[in-house]
């Protein structure tokens, strides 16, 4: 299994079972087991949102998941991910993310520094979110009640789904269509060697066709809403988010907090 820890999720599950009294389904961000102290949800909703200008990529080439290679050289980073449920605390390990677009698709890459990499799942639409994983939430229409979720781990397992979230926060009305698979989606995962300090990196690159999301290619100046996240299992889970999510109760599905992607050429 090499770098990948096996059986750790089962251990976590057993530990959580002791905490919450049941573990009949995978723990998932959004479950209320991660409640922090109550916060003013309305005040949090008025926090600033991040914005990123998505560059047009000429000749994007094959997916390599290498952030130091074309088409990514010269493309600015999205910005730091901060821990969900905090006032902007950094994650233990840095994550670099870049996004671009072509005539046909969105390209996105995550480059994750890490210590131990937890990646058990290999099947499409398995609960990849219980591994160390990267996540994209994206609403191409700007309708924050309907969006898509893409989750991948270091072994290249993909969980993609279509979300209906009428309350903009994960509540009882939340619906997830896990059977949905994004037509034409391509992705690639890779990992680097262990450094002398025990650090490693792993990376995922995705190509998401506009047609797969049911939309035309954007025009310059179009705004999409999106959030980019990472889950890292260290001593305890850390959830990282591009857009500040100080209120952890609703997990990563807080679509009114999605940042802005502005398409440019």
């Amino acid at each position, binding site marked *: 299994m090499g770098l990948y820890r096996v059986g750790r999720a089962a251990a976590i599950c057993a530990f959580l079972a002791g905490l919450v009294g049941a573990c009949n389904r995978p723990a998932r961000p959004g479950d209320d087991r991660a409640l922090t102290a109550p916060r003013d949800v309305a005040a949090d909703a008025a926090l600033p*949102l991040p*914005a990123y200008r998505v560059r047009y990529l000429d000749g994007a080439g094959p997916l390599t998941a290498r952030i130091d290679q074309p088409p990514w050289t010269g493309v600015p980073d999205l910005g730091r991910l901060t821990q969900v449920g905090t006032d902007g605390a950094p994650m233990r390990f840095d994550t670099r993310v870049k996004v671009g677009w072509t005539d046909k698709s969105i390209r996105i890459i995550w480059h994750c520094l890490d210590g131990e990499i937890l990646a058990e799942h290999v099947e499409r639409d398995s609960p990849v979110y219980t591994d160390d994983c990267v996540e994209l939430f994206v609403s191409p229409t700007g309708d*924050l*009640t309907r969006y898509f979720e893409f989750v991948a781990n270091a072994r290249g397992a993909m969980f993609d789904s279509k979300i209906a979230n009428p309350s903009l926060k994960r509540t009882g009305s939340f619906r997830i269509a896990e059977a949905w698979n994004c037509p034409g989606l391509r992705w690639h995962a890779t990992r680097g060697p262990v450094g002398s300090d025990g650090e490693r990196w792993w990376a995922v690159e995705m190509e998401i066709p506009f047609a797969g999301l049911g939309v035309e290619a954007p025009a310059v*100046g179009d705004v999409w809403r999106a959030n980019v996240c990472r889950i890292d299992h260290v001593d305890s889970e850390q959830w990282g988010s591009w857009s500040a999510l100080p209120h952890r109760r609703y997990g990563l599905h807080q679509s009114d907090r999605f940042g802005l992607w*502005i398409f*440019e050429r």
Partner: protein
Amino acid sequence: MADQIPVYRLKKVSNLPPLSARLDQGPWPDLPEFGELTLLGTAGEPARCKTVVKACWSDTSIRILWHCEDDAVRASHTKRDAPLWSEEVVELFVCPGRNLTDYYEFNFNALGAVFDAHISNPSIIRNESFKPDIPWNCENLQWVVAGEGKFNNTASQDKWWAVEADIPFASLGGAAVPRVGEYWHANVFRIERTEPEQYCTWSVLPAFKPGFHQADRFGSWVFIE
């Protein structure tokens, strides 16, 4: 580092009373303020002049109020679509759609003049491709001004001036009435001409030269109940 876009949540108010431009009247005492305006060309340095901005919405329109503390209120333009921005003015840029190259601009001065235009800003940040449609007038736009002082009188120690405007959704290129939870892109401004001049903006604009037309930094207006 990503840009940080401010968020303002517009409350819905039914049965809006007539315009007053009075901070202590109508719906205004109960509504939250936009954050402090900052100086154009800075990383968020607060403007020295104090401006209170509030907004809300109804089934048919947006209401917005600027209350500007000012000890020397200056304005001379009185005609529709005169270059109000060359004097003391408050401004709104508002994009009801999902494309930041296409939006509307409103300027108001203390004499009750208005400049309104439909903006085409193909490069998102103003350059030579920028094209305002100045003859465009916002149908059924209402606005009133109020204030304390003798404007344009150098002997007068003025106190404040204010503008309240009512902008029908239907007049913004047929924009649909927003649903609760929906959002628009917008920025609000003030120009204060007492030296040293202050170009004030709600959303932080670190670059001075493109001026106010930096649509990629419009704030987010969220329509709530």
